[in-house]
């Protein structure tokens, strides 16, 4: 029997010690549209003289002042008309407009009221609750999003496996990382479906200015799929791949690919070491399967575990590569754009988004980062 690989052992030890108290909690990095307060705007509201007039008023308004989908038309006898901006804040203008549109102006009280209402649909329960204090909204909570915000998205076993991955990342960084103030540390690419580590890399910027950990890890995955651009493995197949002689989907023997090679002897991790990264309660998790019948495509569906928040180069490399989730330990106040200086994954217009969590064993990661060699790039 093979000796037990360290990642599997670490995970099992972590999971089996039922008393294991996690000293960390993954912090989701979310956009302001989700974490921020609901955005309010002022609108005119009319008060109907009689309950019986409601349905006629609704019908009549539907034609001349359609209501945004997320707002309810009525709140008791009060009926929503329009944002005050639309009528330059002038209630007389609005009433004249209504009269011209054959709305029965006599059915409402003379004075219009002004309310604050949600200007766009609330995204979260808490935003919906804020909106409701002012004007009723139509709101259907997004269960996945609420789980994400509440921090209850991961099961114990998943947390244990993420911790095991981060401990590997720390070991890799300690062994080999050489980076700059802008980017340093180590990166793992894992397949949550199979629970295997596909690639481990430590920043090697002394050898090449682009050899940031994530850049190396992504190229190692490409190599495992018969591609790759850099000469990173001893039995380098990238030349064969370029010439189209390498037909195998998985040319390697189940071993996670490493760079630099010193990581291999340190971290002997067969692909089959089985981390428990996927949810046991499967129907809950939306998955984009990385390995349908067309085979793996880039890093689709894979997760990245990083010692430190990535720089723009690495952040975008992982986005191009279509990883679905990123976990990092230490924040990067110099160039980090997944929480520190920006949140790239919430920039409007980008496709292939990933989800991001920070603060995985943050203090320990920050300490191992301090021990990494830093060069001036």
């Amino acid at each position, binding site marked *: 029997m093979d000796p037990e690989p360290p990642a599997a052992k670490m995970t099992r030890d972590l999971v089996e010690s039922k008393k294991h108290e996690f000293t960390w909690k993954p912090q989701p990095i979310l956009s302001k549209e989700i974490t921020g307060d609901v955005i309010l705007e002022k609108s005119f509201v009319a008060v109907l003289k009689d309950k019986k007039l409601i349905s006629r008023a609704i019908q009549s308004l539907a034609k001349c002042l359609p209501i945004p989908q997320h707002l309810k038309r009525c709140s008791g006898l009060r009926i929503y008309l329009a944002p005050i901006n639309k009528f330059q804040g002038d209630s007389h203008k609005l009433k004249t407009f209504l009269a011209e549109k054959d709305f029965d102006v006599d059915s409402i009280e003379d004075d219009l009221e002004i309310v604050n209402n949600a200007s766009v649909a609330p995204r979260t329960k808490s935003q919906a609750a804020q909106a409701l204090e002012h004007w009723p909204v139509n709101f259907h909570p997004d269960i996945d999003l609420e789980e994400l915000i509440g921090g209850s998205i991961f099961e114990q076993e998943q947390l244990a496996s993420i911790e095991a991955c981060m401990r590997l990342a720390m070991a890799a960084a300690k062994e080999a990382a050489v980076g700059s103030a802008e980017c340093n540390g180590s990166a793992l690419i894992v397949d949550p479906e199979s629970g295997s580590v596909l690639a481990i890399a430590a920043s090697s910027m002394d050898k090449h200015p682009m050899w940031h950990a994530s850049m190396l890890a992504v190229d190692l995955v490409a190599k495992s799929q018969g591609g790759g651009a850099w000469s990173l493995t001893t039995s380098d197949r990238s030349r064969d791949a370029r010439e189209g002689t390498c037909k195998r989907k998985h040319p390697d023997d189940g071993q996670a690919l490493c760079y630099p090679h010193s990581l291999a002897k340190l971290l002997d991790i067969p692909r089959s070491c089985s981390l428990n990264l996927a949810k046991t309660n499967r129907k809950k998790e939306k998955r984009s399967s990385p390995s349908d019948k067309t085979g793996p495509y880039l890093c*689709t569906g894979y997760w990245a575990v990083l010692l430190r928040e990535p720089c723009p180069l690495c952040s975008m490399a992982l986005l*191009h590569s279509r990883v679905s989730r990123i976990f990092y330990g230490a924040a990067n106040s110099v160039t980090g754009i997944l929480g520190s200086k*920006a949140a790239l994954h919430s920039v409007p217009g980008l496709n292939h988004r990933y989800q991001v969590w920070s603060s995985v064993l943050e203090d320990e990661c920050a300490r191992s980062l301090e021990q990494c060699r830093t060069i001036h790039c």
Partner: protein
Amino acid sequence: MDANAWMDKALHEAQISLKRGEVPVGCLFIYKNEIIATGSNTVNETKNATRHAELNCIDDVLVYCQENNLNSKEVFTKIDVVVTVEPCIMCAAALHQLRINSIIYGCANDRFGGCKSVFEVSKVYDSKINVVGNVKGVEAMQLLKDFYKGTNPNAPETKKGRKKKLDNN
């Protein structure tokens, strides 16, 4: 040579990569008025989504410096980059980290542009790079349109229908 003449050469490089089934982006790295690296996308060839023209040129400059016994760090600071499409956020970050001298690009990159279109990478770095856009932008955009009229043969089936522009860049 002036910017237009350089761009013609970059566009020629992009045309060649279009024939190879890659997103047609061409790039030159110019040092002391001489092209020391020429590159295009090799994303499909390498199965690595980060192999953009700019990164391929960076690799070539490192080889050039090794062969000519030059300090690559210094050489990069004197390089002018000519590229047919606005560098993406990743490539813009790479160019900022290398503190290259200037960037001249053709058309904007609405999907991933890192100079101005989607995310301003320069805000993250202290370096100030002189950036000039829209040099023969129409020609550069036409090549991209030609590419996306077909489909990316290496993307999974389900993705093909949605591909419009710059998916691989």
